[in-house]
């Protein structure tokens, strides 16, 4: 979607290696989110941010960390990738202010071998 980009789009990595996924927005939205989507589980929230340097855990945060040093970028890091983290990762943004129309990125397909 316009205004939000994820990189990389695809990545294959080995078990035990660190991986960082990037979400970049040009909308100046306050809220940013990381989800993972797996068959049979739907979309599950990993971490979210409500401002620069303000982040909190979602329902499946174990094994993941995030950072937001500026409004436009929200990074998701897998410190030591495991096969269970093979998934499609989506970033989303929201302006808040009674607007619940979240905008999602195109996703990153991560495979841990």
């Amino acid at each position, binding site marked *: *979607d316009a205004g939000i980009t994820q990189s990389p789009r695809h990545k294959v990595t080995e078990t035990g290696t660190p991986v960082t996924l990037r979400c970049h927005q040009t909308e100046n939205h306050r*809220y940013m*989110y990381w*989800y993972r989507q797996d068959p049979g589980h*739907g*979309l*599950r*929230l990993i971490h*979210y941010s*409500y401002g620069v340097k303000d982040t909190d855990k*979602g329902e499946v945060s174990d094994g993941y960390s995030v950072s937001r040093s500026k409004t436009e970028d929200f990074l998701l890091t897998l410190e030591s990738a495991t096969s269970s983290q093979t998934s*499609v990762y*989506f970033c*989303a943004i*929201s302006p*808040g202010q*009674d*607007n*619940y*129309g*979240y*905008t*999602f*990125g*195109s*996703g990153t397909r991560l495979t841990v071998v």
Partner: protein
Amino acid sequence: LAKTTQPISMDSYEGQEVNITCSHNNIATNDYITWYQQFPSQGPRFIIQGYKTKVTNEVASLFIPADRKSSTLSLPRVSLSDTAVYYCLVASGGSYIPTFGRGTSLIVHP
């Protein structure tokens, strides 16, 4: 956080109107109802948001009864390209943490 219940799947045919109902019995006074559409290999896309009565945009209509314990997304004259998963979300007013359920898989047949 209001829990939502939707049918797992629905089938329809091109040109028909499709109504997908979502139950949210414990919706709070300041909660909003939103619907999203997701195609395979893409992120969800916002369709419509409502609080009460009826909301209509160029894509769909959202009907919310007075008690707000359910809502119905109406897609007029569907086409094959409307085949997707549709999610109903209840957003707590002032809390911007969207929680997705399993959604409804809509398949439109020729």
